[in-house]
């Protein structure tokens, strides 16, 4: 165990190594570690936030769904009511329209009847006139008179 210049050599080497480590090894590794720590913390925080947001969203979705169901029920009820109303209205309308049409048809029929009666009356008058004329002529021709009567009868 004899001491020699190795002591000094080792000390110098040691100082140089520590200097190198302090300058080029330790800081970058520590920086990376710190950065990763921050990154992980941020990631965890984001995950928590995401979870919370999801919960909120789920709650909101449930609420919206509930509201929508309610609204839908309301709309259906209203629609049913309205449908019933419409049916009722159209029934009434139809009855009224039917009555109107019936009345119009009746009026037309009556008109037709009147018109037919009018024309019939005219024709009867004509025929009577013609018959009378012919009867007057038959004073001269008796046989012809009979025929005429027959013909008249057939016509009526």
């Amino acid at each position, binding site marked *: 165990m004899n001491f*020699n210049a190795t002591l000094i050599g080792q000390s110098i080497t040691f100082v140089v190594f520590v200097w190198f480590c302090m300058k080029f090894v330790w800081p970058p590794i520590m920086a990376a570690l710190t950065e990763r720590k921050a990154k992980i913390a941020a990631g965890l925080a984001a995950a928590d936030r995401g979870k919370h947001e999801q919960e909120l969203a789920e709650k909101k979705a449930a609420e919206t769904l509930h509201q929508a169901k309610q609204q839908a029920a309301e709309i259906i009820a209203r629609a049913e009511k309205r449908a019933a109303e419409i049916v009722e209205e159209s029934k009434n309308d139809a009855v009224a329209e039917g009555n109107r049409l019936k009345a119009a048809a009746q009026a037309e029929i009556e008109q037709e009847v009147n018109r037919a009666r009018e024309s019939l009356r005219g024709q009867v008058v004509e025929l009577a006139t013609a018959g009378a004329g012919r009867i007057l002529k038959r004073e001269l021709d008796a046989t012809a008179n009979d025929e005429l009567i027959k013909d008249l009868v057939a016509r009526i």
Partner: protein
Amino acid sequence: MSATTSAEYIKHHLTNLTYGKFPEGHEHAGHWGFAHNAQDAASFGFWSINVDSMLFSIVLGVLFLGLFRMVAKAATADVPGGWQNFVEWVVEFIDDSVRGSFSGKNALVAPLALTIFIWIFLMNFMDLIPVDWLPWLAGLLGVGHLKVVPSTDPNITFGLSLTVFALVLYYSVKMKGVGGFVGELTLMPFQSNNKLVQILFIPVNFLLEAVTLISKPVSLSLRLFGNMYAGEMIFILIALMYGGGLVLGTFGGLLQLGWAIFHILIITLQAFIFMTLTIVYLDMASQEHH
């Protein structure tokens, strides 16, 4: 390797490859060269160097810095790969240790602790390489002696601990001022309200505090050196058994395996203790305690 007796074998393994100037009276007097034996090495005096210790400690230190620098250069906050993961785990472990033991803020302490821990661990780790391999390889290359575990060389351990000691002194003076540091050395632990008694206490206090202070680097380096030297010695003794026939050799093999497994614990522990004590000493140095 021409070791014949056990004593020679052991001695051979415990001799550093020392480079220095041969003194007067030697056959190579005045020349620079490698020591042929322990006597030569001792005769070189202070201005010689243990080439093997320096070589291995530098190679291991460069290996450590290279491997860690690789990660530092590519370090990202994304998902780390295998080696980066390991390095980050080590760095985090050191960082935790420093945070736990060092109360102040100092950019030097953590890298210092990392360097000490990994470097000493690697130097100790050389102990697990079977004792004859590297010296045998060196022998093939014509190198007579090779001590592969740098931390079994007191020059290496003292080189580390004295540097730490210099830092302790530096931070003591820096944080407390020269007066504060001197006061710490002379005015404690014995104190008195009487001025005269206080003055009489100064030499006593100084003696006690000086011993406390000096014991720091000495215990730091001797603990590491002693543990590693003893461990290496046991490996060498076990290796001696290989020459004792089949039964003894097999037994030696089992012993070596057992000791090596146990030694993994020791080398890690010694590196950790050196690091932790360094942190604690520096913490004490930069703290004003009353």
